[in-house]
């Protein structure tokens, strides 16, 4: 086997160790390693480097954790207390819930209100000689649609403006 041939397999060993090799090439590399002593030696030396990297143990100052936590606590706690009173995530959930409740109430009021307005308009329409279809159209245009649109606006408007936060 020529040097270039070994070099290409040694390159594959590097790729394999770096996690940058395809399954196909890895299989081909495995097969090559069964029969090639120089490439096996290359892999062995590479593995010793990697094992050697794990042979260092850096001393961590025993007071470092305490110092870090002492610096973190004042920064974390006050904010956490604020969050406990006005927790962002809970507020988000509450906001969502309130938004849908508000919409449901608004839609219900819109429908019930329309029915009431229709009944009143029907009674008032008789002496004025309006027929039922005209009353229904008037209620639809002047009451039901505006109130329905208002309910939808409530859904789209920011919570603060709606006064529900």
């Amino acid at each position: 086997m020529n040097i270039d041939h070994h070099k290409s397999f040694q390159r594959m060993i590097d790729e394999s160790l770096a996690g940058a090799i395809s399954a196909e090439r890895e299989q081909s590399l495995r097969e090559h390693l069964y029969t090639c002593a120089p490439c096996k030696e290359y892999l062995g030396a590479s593995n010793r480097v990697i094992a050697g990297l794990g042979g260092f143990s850096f001393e961590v100052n025993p007071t470092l954790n305490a110092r870090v936590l002492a610096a973190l606590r004042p920064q974390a706690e006050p904010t956490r207390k604020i969050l406990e009173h006005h927790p962002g995530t809970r507020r988000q959930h509450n906001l969502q819930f309130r938004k849908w409740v508000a919409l449901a109430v608004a839609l219900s009021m819109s429908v019930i209100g329309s029915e009431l307005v229709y009944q009143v308009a029907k009674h008032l329409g008789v002496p004025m000689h309006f027929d039922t279809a005209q009353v229904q159209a008037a209620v639809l245009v002047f009451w039901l649609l505006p109130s329905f649109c208002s309910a939808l606006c409530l859904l789209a408007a920011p919570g603060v403006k709606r006064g529900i936060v």
Partner: protein
Amino acid sequence: MESDPQRIARGLRQRDIVVLEALVEQYQYRLVRYLVSLLGRRDGVDDIVQEIWLRVLERGGSYDGRSRFEPWFFRVARNIAVDAMRKRPMLSLDSNDEEGGRSSPVSGEPSPYTLAARTQDAERLAHSLQSLEPVYREALVLRFQEDLSLQEISVIVAAPVSTVASRIYRGLATLRPQFEGETA
């Protein structure tokens, strides 16, 4: 059920000191090891560690918990370390200069790698590691000590995956001669 990254993300969002304590406990040694690989020295690391944890607390809300915590954490650590190096120009890592950025140990003092070597192989690597450019040392530590993927490392070092891979190859190539001719 909430996964570990999600639990960490929630804890950081809520600035939960219990979660922070657990993170400090779990990552402190790994952080120190990573910083030594970047700086090539041990002194000054403790101050940077403290600054990093404060930044983690401050910016914790930006970690969304959708991916592993390590890439986000080491990215924050790297940014602080690079800033610290700008203030105290011991070496230039932020330029991602493949040829520059050699660490400069304080003269007369043994290197942090010599002091930290616990095995014979580590002792043999100590000198070469100290003279290795930080970007290669960093890539080796993240890949083989932190067990991060090339994609995760590329996020940390803000470089393409191909660049990260070539740093790993070159780092290995520099250290490998220490053991060549000894293994069957």
